[in-house]
């Protein structure tokens, strides 16, 4: 599918820039051009598609649906699943948390949503598809959904409601009728484009920087360089990479291209995956934001339980691959 892009990048790097195909710089530049082109095309396509989904399925509708009836535990799955299709902006994490709780959606289900949403978004999926292929992408999405379900379920069972900032329970919400006036098709196409392009535009710089770092690793770090240090047999590698990742703040767009190159150089997939999930899903800035709506104890449990589950996923990945 991406074969013409490879031809184009080969032409640019080896004919146009006249770089040696076996040199480090040649290999780095070729890698950079090919990955950038591939990812930018995929980003534009998927962001357009997601703009359509968002238009017909706004988050308010999801909340109304989850709050509409008793789900008997199935809602952990639904919350997690909806988290995957909803774009996550840390701007919205507080209104979302408060809005879900005041609609009487259980705390655990709200967490399921909050955990899965940043892990699986269109950008992460594009990068996974482009860099790791379909199989690993699907396994990643399933693990993220499981992570959201398990962590949300445990947090729900711990009956932590009393550690949510008290004022939240006083807020009343109401079900809102989402009225989408029937706009002409021509206008909709423009709206979707604008909406999708806005997201692409905002993250493109992170993606390019991530790919550039990845390209440097690709060209300059010897093959299997990391294998000696971070082997699968080292049982501390997974927890260590999870813990190191928490203070790092980066979005999936920048991290995934770097991860791809690390794996190529011998970092086990599961270890890399734990690192990535913890970077994207757990971050100190997010903790500071969430501190406004939950007490320290709940925040601590939230990070702890999600962190442990991320490590479990890392170990499982290392076992399978």
């Amino acid at each position, binding site marked *: 599918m991406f074969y013409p892009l490879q031809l184009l990048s080969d032409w640019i790097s080896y004919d146009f820039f006249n770089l040696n195909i076996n040199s480090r710089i040649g290999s780095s530049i070729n890698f950079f051009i090919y990955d950038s082109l591939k990812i930018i095309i995929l980003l534009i396509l998927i962001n357009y598609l997601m703009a359509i989904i968002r238009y017909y399925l*706004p*988050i*308010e509708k999801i*909340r109304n649906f989850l709050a509409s009836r008793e789900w008997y535990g199935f809602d952990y799955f639904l919350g997690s699943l909806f988290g995957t299709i909803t774009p996550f*902006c*840390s*701007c*919205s*994490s*507080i*209104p*979302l948390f*408060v*809005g*879900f709780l*005041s609609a009487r959606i259980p705390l655990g289900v709200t967490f399921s949503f909050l955990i899965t949403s940043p892990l699986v978004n269109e950008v992460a999926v594009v990068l996974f598809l482009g860099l790791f292929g379909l199989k690993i992408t699907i396994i990643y999405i399933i693990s993220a959904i499981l992570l959201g379900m398990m962590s949300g379920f445990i947090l729900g069972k711990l009956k932590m409601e009393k550690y949510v900032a008290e*004022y939240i329970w006083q*807020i*009343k*919400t*109401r*079900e*809102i009728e989402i009225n989408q006036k029937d706009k002409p098709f021509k206008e909709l196409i423009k709206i979707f484009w*604008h*909406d999708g392009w*806005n997201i692409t535009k905002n993250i493109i710089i992170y993606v390019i920087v991530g790919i550039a770092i990845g390209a440097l690793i690709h060209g300059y770090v010897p093959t299997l360089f990391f294998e000696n240090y971070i082997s699968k047999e080292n049982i501390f590698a997974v927890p260590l990479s999870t813990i190191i990742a928490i203070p790092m703040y980066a979005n999936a767009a920048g991290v995934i291209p770097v991860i791809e190159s690390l794996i190529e150089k011998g970092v086990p997939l599961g270890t890399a995956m734990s690192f990535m999930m913890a970077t994207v899903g757990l971050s100190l800035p997010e903790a500071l*934001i969430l501190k406004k709506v939950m007490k320290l104890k709940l925040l601590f449990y939230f990070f702890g339980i999600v962190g442990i589950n991320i490590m479990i996923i890392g170990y499982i990945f290392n076992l399978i691959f």
Partner: protein
Amino acid sequence: MQIEVIGSGCKKCKMLYDLAREVANDLGLRDAVLYSNDITKIINMGLVSSPVLTINGNPVLVGIIPSRNELKEIISKNF
């Protein structure tokens, strides 16, 4: 006429506020745009995303930043 941008204080909310102020100025509506970071207002309206732009108390934009022209059209339409 009152335009209010309500957000959790993030970058996107500030961007929308600045844009709304510029557009309101272009339309000759000086000081018509207010900024609030009281998220209970958002929840009370039944919404869950931020930022929200309201005109005379009615939410007209939720969670997105429109283009300048789009915002101009929205404000003039609800004038």
